[in-house]
């Protein structure tokens, strides 16, 4: 499994130079960075949120934030790694906000369900039997997973994070992350075998 730090082709010094220029207001340099890294950001947002529409919004947010923060990039790690971390953190933070709104808007729903306890709730309902039945490939099946299971599956099996890293990012216990991963794999196998 590839390390998450090595998932994006990074031209190293060239990226750093572009980041420096973009931080100084060079829009063309920023656009070049976008061309290089936006596909990676969008793929991550799409798989973690389970929605192309939401991924488009998240990708916009990430790049606006990135534009604001480029000045604080010190070049101590690859720019691609920095963008990756910023993206994961933004998606998880956004999911927590969505979860809080969801809980506030539906106080009558009582205690949170397993999938909406914390951290990874998204706008769309969790598993809809119909959407699961209609899933025809792995991407669709991932998108149809319950949010918590999807987050752990994407970070672990797609992005290559370790359980301790995921536990820190999501604020859950490592054991819970492992259980969510095995649950996600089980659900995916059930869907893909149909």
């Amino acid at each position, binding site marked *: 499994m590839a390390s998450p730090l090595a998932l994006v082709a990074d031209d190293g010094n060239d990226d750093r130079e572009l980041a*420096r220029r973009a931080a100084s207001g060079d829009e063309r340099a920023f656009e070049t960075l976008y061309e290089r890294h936006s596909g990676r950001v969008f793929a991550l947002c799409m798989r973690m949120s389970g929605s192309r529409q939401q991924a488009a919004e998240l990708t916009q947010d990430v790049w606006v934030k990135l534009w604001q923060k480029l000045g604080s990039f010190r070049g101590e790690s690859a720019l691609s790694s920095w963008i990756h971390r910023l993206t994961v953190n933004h998606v998880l933070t956004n999911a927590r906000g969505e979860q809080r709104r969801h809980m506030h808007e539906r106080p009558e729903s009582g205690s949170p369900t397993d999938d909406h306890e914390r951290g990874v709730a998204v706008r769309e309902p969790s598993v809809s039997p119909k959407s699961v039945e209609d899933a025809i490939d792995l991407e669709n099946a991932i998108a149809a997973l319950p949010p918590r299971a999807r987050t752990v599956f994407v970070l672990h099996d797609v992005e290559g994070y370790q359980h301790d890293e995921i536990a820190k990012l999501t604020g859950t216990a490592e054991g819970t992350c*492992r259980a969510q991963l095995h649950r996600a794999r089980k659900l995916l*196998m059930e869907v893909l075998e149909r």
Partner: protein
Amino acid sequence: MTTDHLDIETLSAFADGELNAVLAHRVERHVAGCAECRGDLDGVRGLVASAAALARDVAPPPEVWENIRARKPSAESREPRWWHNGWLAAAAAVVLVAGTATMMLLARPSGVAKGAKLAKHQAATTPVVLAAVERNYAPTLDVLRETLDAQREQLAPSTVRTLEHSLAVIDSAIAEASAALVADPGSADLLNLLSSSYQRKVEFMKRATSLPSSL
């Protein structure tokens, strides 16, 4: 042939090597004799391989870039480059603290009664100690100074002015500590302060010489 099959979660944990030795051995034995569970285990491993092989990049819709451009942050809302507000401010704070500490130590009576013989001995050895401390740091500082001078043209004039001002303040703190040590040769605090001031100068210059590569 067995009719009790393993659940997918157990096989998934087995595939990741998470089961203890006893459980792992049981799973191995079971899978060896159960075609269905062997198929499920292959399925778990295939799923993991497929997930890892998913495309790294998925092109966002074209309107995403247009929306980002429309939301382009103003120059004021962008975070300043880190060396302009971060470590220089921190270094200035260190210098101020060092200078204040020096003044406090200078104002403080030594509080230690010394015999005339001891005082005379310390007064005689202080210049030797000062020279030794300076010798200890001089080669490193000389190299750093040469490097910094060579890189000067790559830095903005305002950055150079800030660097030189900060270095002057650190030099002033070193001079104060040296003078205080001459006046109070027995003070271990002052000797430590002098050494730490030199060390701070070395650290400051190291960071300054790394600036052009960060630009």
